[in-house]
């Protein structure tokens, strides 16, 4: 089955992973800007990183026929440095019109601090002013519930924001309902220990319906599985769910969400899948 991975950090994966993704039916990846595992020292460090996301990664993905899209921001961990964050935020517009750039992300909270919230708001202000889509990271583990509520509170301040153009990612059982009820897209991340499993993601589809749910691997430099979305597909099949429902979550929903970005120039596979 053709699928998107709407949230994966390919910059931290070897090229072999692109080959594996292509073989398993991944037609496109969406890569938000994130924390590299260490705190970058300067805004110019971010400029180089954004160039890597917008220039080299699409090329590398293309070697295997995978289409690559990206998001630009300073991530929540490094947002604790407000001075640096403001320098990076000032640079973001330079990249928002580049091919394949879908919007601002992954912004969010990490430990739910004042500085993180200030920088999150300034990103949302930028995105709102420029009518960009937004991809949001919700915190890990014990911080996820309060942080998600804080994020939703802050988004409420933007009355003109089109919630259908905002993806709130890494939802779990205790945050998914609130995100969906407020009209946002919700992403379920299949990542060991700190996030969700394919089985629990399928549970959430069964409990909440497929209308506004996406699923991703968030593959990065930590222990993670970039081919996690096919695991979700398999679990759905093993439970007897129809191909049309699976396709909605892993292909049609991402396509609908991303198609709202002016730089999403997706070329569908030439060979269509057999009608179900």
């Amino acid at each position: 089955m053709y699928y998107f991975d709407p949230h994966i950090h390919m910059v931290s994966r070897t090229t072999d992973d692109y080959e594996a993704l292509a073989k398993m039916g991944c037609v496109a990846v969406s890569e938000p800007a994130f924390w590299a595992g260490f705190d970058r020292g300067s805004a110019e460090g971010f400029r180089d990183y954004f160039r890597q996301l917008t220039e080299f990664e699409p090329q590398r993905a293309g070697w295997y026929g995978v289409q690559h899209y990206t998001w630009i921001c300073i991530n929540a961990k490094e947002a604790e440095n407000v001075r640096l964050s403001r320098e990076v935020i000032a640079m973001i517009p330079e990249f928002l019109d580049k091919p394949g750039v879908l919007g601002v992300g992954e912004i969010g909270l990490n430990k739910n601090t004042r500085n993180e919230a200030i920088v999150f708001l300034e990103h949302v202000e930028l995105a709102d002013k420029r009518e960009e889509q937004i991809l949001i990271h919700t915190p890990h583990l014990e911080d996820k519930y309060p942080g998600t509520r804080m994020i939703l509170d802050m988004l409420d301040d933007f009355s003109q924001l089109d919630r259908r153009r905002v993806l709130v990612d890494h939802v779990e059982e205790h945050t998914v309902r609130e995100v969906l009820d407020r009209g946002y897209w919700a992403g379920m991340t299949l990542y060991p220990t700190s996030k969700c499993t394919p089985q629990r993601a399928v549970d959430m589809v069964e409990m909440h319906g497929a209308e506004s749910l996406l699923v991703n691997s968030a593959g990065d430099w930590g222990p993670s599985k970039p081919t996690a979305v096919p695991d979700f597909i398999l679990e759905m099949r093993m439970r007897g769910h129809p191909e049309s429902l699976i396709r909605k979550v892993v292909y049609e929903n991402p396509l609908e969400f991303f198609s709202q970005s002016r730089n999403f120039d997706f070329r569908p596979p030439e060979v269509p899948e057999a009608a179900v």
Partner: protein
Amino acid sequence: MKLTIPHEAPAVLQREFLPVRAKIIEIAAALDRLDRSAGTVSEDPQVAQIRAALDELATPQPGRAERIQMIFSLPYDPRWRKTIKMPSEADG
């Protein structure tokens, strides 16, 4: 909107029994490992969370996963903007 689930309880039990059994034994072994370790963590709040989560597992009401997530979560403070001293519009 809940989906119509295409599977029956006996089939789910047959599929889930061995993985659940394995996960419960893993948890039991981890708790035994804690007992064999030097010192005590009996007053550690994480131990209290684990015990509360295990108690929740044994409840009959659906929604255990969500309730256990909340056991392991920090609380939401509806006055967080004041608590962390967010700048207001008045601050400029």
